[in-house]
């Protein structure tokens, strides 16, 4: 029942000067199915649009082709005009006879012929268009934030403050992440905990935030607006509701010699412990690996002494199932471990430490209460060597990228050392100084010029111990590679920031992609930096790439605003130009063979498996199904489907076929 209208626009002289628009209209009128064909000076003008609307109504058009400018320009205009006249907007197509024709060719028959050909192609296409409606997907207005570092905290607070519910999941007993471990922050030297802990408390008290600490994501299914998350709430062995945080247990626990992760191994903690005094929640956890009761069945001191009777040795992990509409992944980063630097003796010499350990030394709440004392003997080091780019930008180590934060924190470290040990010498080995950022370069200069840090451009080849000193051997590349040897009391490695070890597994649970360094991939490096390829899953912080606090916070707020944007509607409205698997009469049900090659090419994980069953529930066959919530309409699946069981609205097989045949 095709009744197609063709509307050829002159665009003033833009098209009319090189294309004989009247002739194009005339030629188009003889295409089978075309019942109306006119040309007009300006189709996009009000009278032009009225022309279309009236023809749609009077001629009962079932499709419209507007031959004018690029569809990227005016497709919405003409589609709206058609919709206003009662024709489904997806039954309107544009033939691009301006950008692709009149503007790029000289006036002549061939240019007119080309315009007519383009119209014919689109007429054949529009005959095969289907009326479509935007896809409506309900939205569960709860966000799942994974990771309780500064990025996760910021994202949670922003979303919660916008009035939406948040589930914040943190794998450790407390939120705070790496930022809680830091001493002071560049370039202002604010105390890290002073600016962070109020945020942590806000999270705990926020009515819209449910904090699940000591918990991990088990699995995530579903799609944007409609995810189902399974979360493992690990057993604290302490009833959080009863515990008052009085700390009797942690004081009395006899098992005291456990390296504290929070203190980067430089301090000790008990088996029942709160990672740090400002922890949120401030409720202890029993570390069953080290707890005497769990190892020997005896002890139970904590249980006996707890005034609130909150210790629960029998407590088991719990699995929570939660419906969420969006996910913010803010799982952070890690630093490379000890065996990464045999040449530097990291892990071998106690006084070769990494930046995070130095942060704990410099922190007022750290094991040395903020005094810079070296781990081996607690002496105040006279000479400290700071190594920037320890692992970063090092192809041999397999880390090609710049960890971005080290230049700044190394300057800060040198500065803090000089502030605390006025007589000490601070050497900094560096490759380049990357101090792009507000007040950043000034900060580095201050370290050099005011605080007297000695910057040496060069790489350190080896560190070894001689006569109680750490000999740092390197070369000063500014001085033509002159060898340099420094006898140091302590060496601080600005170790490379790497993806957290669980990143790969998590990415697979989330069905998001990641790069070769296991950092999560953003949907577009420039234009969609906080989105992932999986609609409804967003990124914040250093899980995407190494970044500093302001950047992490900014990205977290960006992700939060994406979530809020998503939650601002009850229904998600999506372009309906998506793929679908055909369904046919039994006994075949679909021409889909169930080979699932489509599944393997889909960048959005939009292909699901659907088992067709008899009325009695007996499985007949398993075929593919496209999740309309996830499909973005790229059509890669259509091209790999051998039997063309899958098709893409707007660019369907019959449309593209007809378009080519129209040129025969």
């Amino acid at each position, binding site marked *: 029942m095709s009744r197609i209208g063709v509307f050829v626009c002159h665009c003033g002289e833009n098209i009319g000067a090189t294309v004989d628009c009247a002739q194009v209209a005339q030629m188009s009128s003889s295409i089978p199915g075309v019942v109306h064909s006119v040309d007009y000076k300006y189709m996009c003008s009000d009278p032009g649009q009225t022309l279309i609307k009236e023809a749609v109504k009077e001629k009962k058009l079932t499709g419209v082709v507007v031959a004018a400018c690029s569809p*990227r320009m005016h497709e919405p205009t003409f589609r709206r005009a058609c919709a206003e006249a009662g024709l489904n907007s997806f039954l309107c197509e544009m033939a691009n006879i301006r950008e692709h024709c009149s503007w790029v*060719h000289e006036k002549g028959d061939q240019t007119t012929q080309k315009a007519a050909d383009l119209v014919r192609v689109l007429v054949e296409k529009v005959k095969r268009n289907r009326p479509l409606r935007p896809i409506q997907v309900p939205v569960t207005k709860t966000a799942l934030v994974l990771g309780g570092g500064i990025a996760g905290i910021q994202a949670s607070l922003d979303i919660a403050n916008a009035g939406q519910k948040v589930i914040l999941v943190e794998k450790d007993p407390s939120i705070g992440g790496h930022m809680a471990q830091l001493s002071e922050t560049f370039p202002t030297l604010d105390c890290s905990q002073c600016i962070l802990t109020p945020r942590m408390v806000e999270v705990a008290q926020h009515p819209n935030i449910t904090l699940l600490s000591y918990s991990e994501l088990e699995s995530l299914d579903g799609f944007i607006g409609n995810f189902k998350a399974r979360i493992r709430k690990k057993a604290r062995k302490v009833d959080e509701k009863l515990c008052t945080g009085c700390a009797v247990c942690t004081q009395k626990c006899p098992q005291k010699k456990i390296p504290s992760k929070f203190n980067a191994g430089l301090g000790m903690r008990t088996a029942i412990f709160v990672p740090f005094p400002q922890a949120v929640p401030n409720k202890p956890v029993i570390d069953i690996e080290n707890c005497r009761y769990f190892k020997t069945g005896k002890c139970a001191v904590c249980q006996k002494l707890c005034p609130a009777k909150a210790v629960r040795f029998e407590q088991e992990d719990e699995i929570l199932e939660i419906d969420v509409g969006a996910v913010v992944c803010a799982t952070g980063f890690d630093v490379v471990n000890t065996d990464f630097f045999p040449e530097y003796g990291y892990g071998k010499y106690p006084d070769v430490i990494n930046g995070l350990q130095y942060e704990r030394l410099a922190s007022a709440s750290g094991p040395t209460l903020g005094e810079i004392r070296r781990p081996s003997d607690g002496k105040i080091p006279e000479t400290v060597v700071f190594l920037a780019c320890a692992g970063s930008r090092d192809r041999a180590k397999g880390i090609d990228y710049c960890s971005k934060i080290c230049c700044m924190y190394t300057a800060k470290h040198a500065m803090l050392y000089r502030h605390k040990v006025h007589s000490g010498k601070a050497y900094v080995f560096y490759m380049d100084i990357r101090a792009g950022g507000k007040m950043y370069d000034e900060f580095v200069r201050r370290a050099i010029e005011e605080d007297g840090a000695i910057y040496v451009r060069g790489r350190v080849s080896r560190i070894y111990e001689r006569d109680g000193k750490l000999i740092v051997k390197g070369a000063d590349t500014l001085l033509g590679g002159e060898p340099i040897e420094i006898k140091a009391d302590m060496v601080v490695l600005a170790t490379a920031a790497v993806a957290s070890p669980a990143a790969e597994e998590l990415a697979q649970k989330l069905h998001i992609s990641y790069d070769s360094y296991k950092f999560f991939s953003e949907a577009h*490096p420039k234009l969609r930096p906080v989105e992932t390829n999986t609609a409804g899953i967003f990124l914040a912080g250093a899980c995407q790439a190494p970044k500093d606090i302001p950047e992490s916070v900014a990205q977290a707020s960006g992700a939060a605003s994406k979530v809020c944007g998503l939650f601002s509607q009850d229904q998600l409205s999506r372009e309906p130009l998506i793929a679908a698997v055909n369904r046919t009469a039994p006994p075949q049900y679909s021409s889909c063979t169930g080979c699932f090659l489509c599944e393997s090419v889909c960048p959005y994980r939009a292909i699901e498996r659907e088992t067709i069953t008899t009325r009695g529930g007996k499985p007949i066959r398993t075929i593919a199904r496209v999740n309309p919530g996830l499909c973005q309409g*790229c*059509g*890669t699946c259509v*091209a790999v489907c051998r039997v063309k069981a899958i098709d893409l609205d707007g660019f369907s097989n019959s449309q593209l076929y007809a378009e*080519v045949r129209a*040129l025969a």
Partner: protein
Amino acid sequence: MSEFEPKIIAFVCNWCTYAGADLTGTSRMKYAHNVRVIRTPCTGRIDYMLILKAFSAGADGVIVSGCHPGDCHYTSGNYHARRRWMVFRSLLDFLGIDVERVRFAWVSAAEGAKWAEVVNTTVADIRRLGPYTEYQNLIGRGVERSFQV
């Protein structure tokens, strides 16, 4: 005798090459009129069958173009397409089909000039190769016809 005007069908992705060709237009760069563009969402959507159909519709040459690697609007469509084309191209070559008549190109939305260049060089190349009679002679061959018109 007038110059041979090749018929060229182009399959382009919506996000890069189509937009790039729009830019050629807005920049008013001129190029050969012989090309007819068919818009697809992504090079990943460009089925090898479309290229065959273009030839059986009498095309002397085909252009297939989309986003540069790394720029795909859908992240990976062009990578899949690149593999598919590599295999398809090998196959065509093995069967003796003139692969020089299929031009694969990456043209970004910013490369208006490159689009003009791709079209112009393709038209020039195909002109040099001449009409694809070898293939077009297959059309209609193998059908016994006995009507007298």
